[in-house]
């Protein structure tokens, strides 16, 4: 399933790249893009475990840039 989320206070381009990298490594994520310009996360992940995966995504992003929030 492919979904889009808005990211609030994504202030640094390098962090966006780091987040994208970290999200891609999560088990069950097929593809992910963090667009610094659009302030958006596009994620393609397993249907069945989607909510679970999203929780992991939030945790990973928090680690990279605690100021940035994903609007679920």
């Amino acid at each position, binding site marked *: 399933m492919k979904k889009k989320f808005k990211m609030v206070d994504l202030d*640094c*381009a*390098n*962090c966006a*790249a780091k987040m994208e990298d970290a999200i891609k490594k999560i088990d069950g994520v097929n593809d992910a893009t963090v667009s*610094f*310009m659009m302030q958006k996360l596009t994620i393609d992940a397993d249907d069945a475990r989607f909510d679970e995966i999203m929780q992991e995504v939030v945790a990973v992003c928090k680690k990279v840039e605690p100021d940035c929030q994903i609007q679920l």
Partner: protein
Amino acid sequence: MMKKQKIMLYRIIAAAVIYVPLFVLEHMGKLEFQSEMPVQFLLFMIPYLIVGWDIIYRAVRNISHGQVFDENFLMCIATFGALGVKEYSEAVAVMLFYQIGELFQSYAVNRSRQSISAMMDICPEYANIEEDGKLKQVDPDDVEIGTEIVIKAGERVPLDGVVVSGTSFVDTSALTGESVPREVTEGSEIISGCVNGSGLLKVRTTKEFDDSTVAKILELVENASSKKAHVENFITKFAKYYTPIVVCAAVVLAFLPPIILGGGFAEWIQRACIFLVISCPCALVISVPLGFFGGIGAASKQGVLVKGSNYLEALSEMKTIVFDKTGTLTKGEFVVSEVIPNGWEKEGLLEVAALAEGYSDHPISAALKKAYEEAELGELSMDRVEQTEEIAGHGIKAKIDGRVVYTGNAKLMEEEGVEYEPCAIPGTVVYLAAEKEFLGTIIISDTVKPEAKRAIAQLKKSGVKKTVMLTGDRKDVGEAVAESLGIDEVYTDLLPGDKVDKVEALLGELGEKEKLGFVGDGINDAPVLSRADIGIAMGSMGSDAAIEAADVVLMDDNILKISSIMRIAGKTLQIVHQNIVFALGVKVLVLILGALGMANMWEAVFADVGVSVIAILNSMRTLKVK
């Protein structure tokens, strides 16, 4: 300016107000206190903390999360290093300028983001539905297919549909870049994203919001950033290694020379700090994608959708361009241009042709029927036709008034043993015969688009080396069209499958770093569109197949736009390369000067945030390319 940016601005001003007098006093030698307390240090710490406390806080927090090489941490080390060697004034200045740079950078990025999203402001916010005689605004997402919606003058069309009542002029400029409004009346199709110019329109929707043109376009543009150009991928990879390498170099620089050469650590630690300040690759990480984003934005302003920065990159290297003739160079509308009867009247010949082709929906048949209607010869009585049979690649065999009639090409005539007069007029030639008797010839031709010749000439000016035309037409027809347009190579008599082979052969002839573009009308040429390096399709105002298969979509089918996007692509790449060379050049230069002890913190801060800001401003120019 956002609230967060305003607070930062006040902090910077406050710190600067305290810092400047301290700086002046220090230089006048008034800050030499003979005291137990480190007064000077404490005084400088006031502005330092005002402007930089959040950097220290974030550095500590991020290290606890395992993020070591982040900007905040590096800035802390660099300024702590300066404080350690008693360069208080310098430490504050570095922090101050770093924050000013960051503020400016975030402001610039915000501005560009706004101007880009303003350009893509085609998303309708609501749809009007009539309920109990009153208009109600609803979310376009909730409108079902077949609902009647009302669009008032000045409103954006929320969903694709057919006009039920009303006439108006709609402004399609947001979608196509075309400034002349189109007229719509009852029965016309209308696509979402356009703006209703004058009258009140009632429209019956034919698509859900998610399938409507506007939603498709928005999705394409938003996803464009995920298809990265080579340059972008290079920068991402580069950024990953750059920071650790520079930091390691800084550590080596701080400890190795003093150990080997002897002497104090202070001097070398200061040089190492310069390295740390320059170690963030931000200038590149922001400005390169921003440049491409702006380029894609500039293209969409012209009514050209580019599906990713990789295609923008490829467009700038396009050396061969292949056109499918029908629908791209020509209008794709077949019109009967000449009727040559063999010894009887024109009307009769046209009637027989229209009857024979009456049941077919081939474009040629449609042209014949249309010509018959336009000649106003009365209603076509199809009951005179007993049976028809299509002979693929040849024509049609029909039984009319008890006689077998053949309509088709020369091959059909030869196979049936008809003694026909071969016709040399360019165009699609249809021969007619009844039994063995030759009835006459009808010429059907496709009209060349008026802008085609200029488009070809402009492409050549933009750096295209070879223009090729592919067509299923006969040799003389194809060559005549190609010659009139100034096309270099023509391949005629092609079946749809042959086009892929031809494109593959042409791809093989390309040199390194040369790209091939294929322009098609989006109908039946999906395989060729995807095989070419850049598939350019006519959007025909929302033909799904074309938008799906192509890499670049010309929303208003205007082939003149191809050379304009090539120019946008070239300019974008040029700006991106400028940024890379400039940012890396300054950084490397300051690194070298820093290692030799010839650069100070000020230059280092400039090499970091200053370069970043300049690169962002440079990237913004891509938006303005025309």
